[in-house]
Structures are given as structure tokens and as C-alpha cells.
């Protein structure tokens, strides 16, 4: 487990990153530097490119141009091993809830059963441990995916709307879990549409609009007075096109 000091994977440096499909530019010349520990929150309207950006910094998609460095090292599988990504749509294996966690714990060796029960307990899923994972409710599936990500003991945790279909009590529980994880020195990059959640968790905010990053500022200053009209409109809940 990483010690309380922050991960050595930072800073994350993204420079002139572009991603295109056919003729459409989905990510447009993105520059981003994340060097502070804690929780960075990515916000932006549907289709802004948030999920794409997460995939690309995690090395799952190859950008057409630009570079990604974690602590000065170009993105590679050895870096991905130290990170975990929870997808917007959880991908669970056709196995029991417990077996989904065991799948990542077993190769790490040691007494994995106890650790698995701990993780399931944290996620509030211990009573579902023997149930087929794909019969869980949508919110339970998201919790399981998060528990599995934590099982890998990542130094960087990338979360794509982890609370999208989660009730408010469980959201609170997950936010506490994320807070604890943050305290352990894990860097968290979180995509969310929940402005309240962003206010509660964010240390800094990255605001995206149509494949570009319009703002990247400390949370307080972003929520006080976003510098872009799109950011302001997003916070006001107005429609931006």
C-alpha cells in the first residue's frame, strides 16, 4: 500500500494532445498539467471528451498527436499497472461478486480472502458476495467496480462518474471512501456531473467543453467565478452549445 506521502507518478503532463475519429476532432490540442495531490475533478457537458481523456491518459487509447508523461515517463504499461480506471459503464465478469474481486487479488498473492471481504464491506456489498455480479443493480455494479479498482492498490485512481446511478446515502459512503483513499496519498481524477459532489471533493477542477480544456483552476476559484462563459453556464445549469 502506498504510504501517506503522495504518489511518485505525478506530475501528469499532457501536451498538444489531439484525438480524431474519421474527420471529427474529439480532443483538440489539449494541454494539461496535474501536479498537486488530492482530487482533480473533470467537469463538462455530455460529449465534451471527459471519458476519452481518461482513457488516453490511462493508455487505453492512442492519441493521434501529443504526448502524455507521468512523472516524466511516457505512458506505458508499467505505468498503467500503478493506476486503476473505473469505467463509466462498469465491466463485470460473469462470476460472483467475490470472484470479481478475487480475480485481481489472487495474482497479488497473500491472504486475499480477508482483504476481499474488507473491500466488499467498504463498498457495502458483503451480503451480496455470492451473487452473480451481473445480477447486481446498476449502482451496486458501480460500487463493485470501484472496490475492484481499489483492490489493485493504485497510486492513481481514475473514476468516470462513479456515482452516476448511486443513491444519496451510498454516494456519501463512497465520497467518504474516496476521501480516505485521498488521505492515503492516492491521486484521484474524477469525472462527475454532480456539482455538489465536485464542490465537496475537488481540490482542483478541469472544465472541458467540446474537446478542449477551457479552465483548470483550484476548486474554490472555479466555483466562485468561472472565467469562461461556458463554465459559468454549466454551473448555472444553463444549456451550452
Amino acid at each position: 500500500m502506498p504510504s501517506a506521502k503522495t504518489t511518485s507518478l505525478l506530475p501528469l503532463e499532457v501536451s498538444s494532445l489531439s484525438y480524431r475519429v474519421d474527420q471529427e476532432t474529439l480532443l483538440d490540442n489539449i494541454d494539461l498539467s496535474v501536479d498537486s495531490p488530492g482530487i482533480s475533478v473533470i467537469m463538462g457537458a455530455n460529449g465534451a471528451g471527459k471519458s476519452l481523456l481518461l482513457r488516453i491518459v490511462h493508455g487505453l487509447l492512442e492519441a493521434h498527436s501529443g504526448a502524455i508523461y507521468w512523472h516524466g515517463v511516457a505512458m506505458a504499461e508499467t505505468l498503467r499497472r500503478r493506476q486503476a480506471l473505473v469505467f463509466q459503464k462498469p465491466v463485470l465478469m460473469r462470476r460472483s461478486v467475490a470472484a470479481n474481486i478475487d480475480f485481481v487479488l489472487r495474482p497479488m498473492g497473500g491472504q486475499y480472502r480477508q482483504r476481499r471481504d474488507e473491500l466488499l464491506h467498504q463498498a457495502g456489498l458483503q451480503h451480496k458476495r455470492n451473487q452473480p455480479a451481473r445480477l447486481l443493480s446498476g449502482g451496486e455494479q458501480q460500487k463493485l467496480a470501484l472496490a475492484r479498482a481499489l483492490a489493485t492498490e493504485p497510486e492513481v485512481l481514475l473514476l468516470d462518474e462513479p456515482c452516476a446511478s448511486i443513491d444519496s446515502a451510498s454516494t456519501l459512503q463512497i465520497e467518504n471512501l474516496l476521501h480516505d483513499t485521498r488521505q492515503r496519498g492516492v491521486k484521484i481524477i474524477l469525472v462527475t456531473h454532480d456539482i455538489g459532489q465536485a464542490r465537496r471533493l475537488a481540490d482542483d477542477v478541469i472544465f472541458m467543453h467540446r474537446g478542449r480544456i477551457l479552465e483548470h483552476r483550484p476548486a474554490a476559484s472555479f466555483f466562485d467565478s468561472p472565467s469562461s462563459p461556458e463554465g459559468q453556464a454549466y454551473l448555472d445549469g444553463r444549456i451550452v452549445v
Partner: protein
Amino acid sequence: MQDFSEAFGLAASLILGFDADLGEIIVLSLRVSLSAVLLAALIGFPLGALTAVLSFPGRQAIAVLMNALMGLPPVVVGLLVYMALSRAGPLGWMNLLYTPMAMIIAQTILVTPIIAALSRQVMEDMHREYDEQFRSLCIPTRRVMTALIWDSRYSLLTVALAGFGRAIAEVGAVIIVGGNIDHLTRVMTTAIALETSKGNLALALALGFVLLILALSVNAAVYSLRASAKRLSYA
């Protein structure tokens, strides 16, 4: 030529009386075809998983080839195995021609492409779904393959049953390499062919009936496996 109704009556008494010859033929048939399916699964599942997971140039061509081999004519397989095992053939020294082992080899060759091709389809679909998650977790290829095989186990069982259905019902391959020798290599399909040509419809009918029951139970098993897999959301 016996009277038809008499043949039916005799067939019923053979089955209900647990006729020894009939039993021997059924047991050998099951032994040969089950062994062949087991071997074919041991080869076909990993092969299916490998072609589902790896992306290499020519992968599409291999998929087409595997699908084409699903339709191998049994007599052609029989002929090729016969040539390989006959005294002058490359494997003639093993003295396997006209033994149950020769029949197992022939049926394994017949069934392996079926199991490999069908299981590739099953696992390719699953791989498409799991791929990003597995890459995120940095799971090595070998482990991806075993995970796919395990997670598609219900579907793979139905694939194996399809292979068994093909093996137990084929006559062309086993008759060539087995020779339909009484008490040695006589299985249901070859016995039916022989007894019918001899006009001994009772035994042929009794065997035909057993074969039909087997085919029906295989289908029922496939159906209920699918249903329970769906219920558990494992399919």
C-alpha cells in the same frame, strides 16, 4: 424382409430386455464419441480462446478456415486417417487401424474445428466486452484466455454438446477407420448401416431409437444449460 410391426416389437424387446449386443454397441459408441469430444475440447477451447484474443495479420483468414473446416465431410476425414494409419502410412507402425483408438482419432479431427470455431465466436464476443477492462488491469494474455474460457463455461458446454451430437451421429469416418468389426469397433451408426443392408431391421430400429433419444437429450441439455446460464446472467 421382416414385417414392419414385427420389427418394432423386436426392437422394443431388445431395448427393454437390455440386450447384451445392443448394450455393447451403445457403450462403445459413447466411449468413442465422448473421448473424441473431450480431446477436441482440450484442443479446441484454447485454440478458440487464442484466436479470439490475439490480433495478428491473417486472423480473419484463420477464422474463415476454421469455419470452413466445420463442414469437413466425415468420409474424407475417415479416408485421410485411414491413409495415415494404414500399414504403408506414416503412422502405420502404431497398428491402430480398425481399433476404437483409430475411431477416436478420426472423430477428434472431425469435431475439433467445430469446437474451435464455435468457441472462438463465443469468446470473441466476450473479449470485445472485457478487453478494455483487462487492458486497464494489465492482465497477461494467458490469463485473459483462461478467464474467457472460464467465464464462457456454460456456452462452451453447449459447444461441446454440439460437437458430441456431430460425433455420435456420423458414420462415414468410423466405418472407414473402424471397419465395423463385431465386438470390437461396431458402433451405433455403423451397426444401423450394416443391419439395415442385411435386412435385420429390428436391431437397426432399436439402435436408431437409442440414437434418437441421445440426440434429443443432447438438445434438451443444451436448452436447459442455456436457460440456467441466462438465469444466472452468466451467458
